């Protein structure tokens, strides 16, 4: 081992991130197993998660739209054993994907689960782009993005 002299320190700060009414409604609807988007009156896109304004048209969204809890994987990745960092939500290997939910016009990021990750090459095939997936909901839901446990491949 290299003999390196270091000063060790730690920064830990707690935050209270304010939910806007749009955020709050999105999270509240998750408790009812409903995924909500908002529609842009100009480009007509349904944006999920719901938001107050369309980032491209720069106008307020005007309509709430429920989208399906089923959709298609746009892209995905399998987080391997090598990738570890402070604050990681779970032990690798695990799956991440962008999912185009039926009725939405943009992708929605979430975990992929319900498949065997022990053989990465096999797992990757089961979660490749184009795969249909469905949300698996937590029994106890508290109005957080993790009320959806993960999306499970349907094939």
């Amino acid at each position, binding site marked *: 081992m*290299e003999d*390196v002299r*270091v000063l060790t*320190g730690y*920064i830990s700060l707690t*935050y209270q*991130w304010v*939910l806007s009414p749009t*955020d709050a409604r999105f999270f509240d609807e998750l408790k009812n197993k409903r995924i909500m988007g908002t529609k842009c009156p100009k480009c007509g896109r349904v*944006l*999920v*998660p719901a938001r107050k304004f369309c*980032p*491209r048209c720069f106008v307020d969204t005007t309509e709430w739209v429920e989208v399906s809890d089923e959709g298609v994987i*746009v*892209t*995905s*990745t*399998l*987080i*391997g*054993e*090598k*990738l*570890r*960092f*402070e*604050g*990681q*939500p779970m032990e690798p290997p695990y799956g*991440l*994907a*962008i*999912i*185009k939910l039926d009725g939405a016009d*943009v*992708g*929605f*990021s*979430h*975990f992929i689960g319900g498949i065997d990750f022990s053989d*990465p090459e096999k797992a*990757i095939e089961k979660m*490749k*782009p*184009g795969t249909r997936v469905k949300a698996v909901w937590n029994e106890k839901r508290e109005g957080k*993005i*993790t009320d959806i446990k993960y999306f499970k491949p349907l094939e």
Partner: protein
Amino acid sequence: MRRVAVIGVGQTKHGKRNDVNYPELVYEAVKKALEHADITIGDVDAIVTGSMPAPMEGTNDPQLWLTDALGGYLKPLMRVATCGSTGISLAHSAYYHVASGLFDVVMAVGMEKMYENDPQGTMTTVAEPFYQRIFTAGAPGIFAQQCNAYIHRYDIPKEKLREAAAEVSVRNHLDALKNPYAHIRVKITVEDVLNSPIVSYPVRLLDLCPISDGACAVIFASEDFVKKAKIDKVAWVKGLSYAGDEHNLGDKDLVNWVSAIKAARETYKMAGIENPIREIDVAEIYNPFTYQEILYYELFGFCKPGEGYKLVLEGVVTKDGEIACDPSGGVLCTNPIGATGLIRVAEAALQIMGEASNQVDGCETALAHAMGGVNQFNGLMILGR
């Protein structure tokens, strides 16, 4: 707008720099840039500096601590931060300062000391905390999704693309051996890349950049100063552009990536470039991931969508080919992130000056590029004679 030139560049030796503290690392790059330009700190009118999110080094607003090492005493100084694209934003900001007519000599300095923290932990915090952070597994988790989208978008033979990506890694590693400042300096084979462990599928360990300690300084000057100080080694800024994208990863098309396409088109227009692959001699592309380098050939108009792998397999992007991509060894071999984009500019400038460690003969036009955020920002700069 006034003409602006790069008149000097300085880099530290990049890697694990346990021999210096953060300010000393920065001082090393600044001193070298001043020596290279053959000017003194007194000639510098203003400084722009930047790095990754401050938790990376654990000192917020690090330009306060670094002011002394930047030579910032009694000078205008500002911090610019656009995540991975910070380095190109620094070059752009220095250019704006000089082109505006307000300053004659402006120094851009980017830095990072990544071995002092958990970089992937820090990078995960760039995503907003409500909807995306928990699904952000550091930089690899974000960009691997772009790579996978690319693999599946076009009717590309997957083995060919896989082979081309491995070749990109091999080429960058070979070129880095010629670069005395490069961090990773080992010869590798295609098999090494293909057999390296999966970090974040489809990205394997050797498809991926390292983390590095390092700093880079680039000095920009007005035409007036260049004439007055009789500076003969310069690289003129010919064009530049920058484009931002939405924050939500799923909002964007990561393959037909509009922010990269737009920034490139605008840069070419300003520089008067019509046929990039013919007119650009060296492209220092921001290539932390092998697949991304290939995708950028397409986004930057070097070839048609879906044909990037052919440029690799046909030898088009090597030093002896039509366009030399990352002859410095690229981000794949050196990545002190806040400095990384500025190193692209420094290496492009050295190619124009004829002083690069892996010099491309007769280089007249060079491209520098950086990308940052949750697949969010792209910036380019063209340098020429």
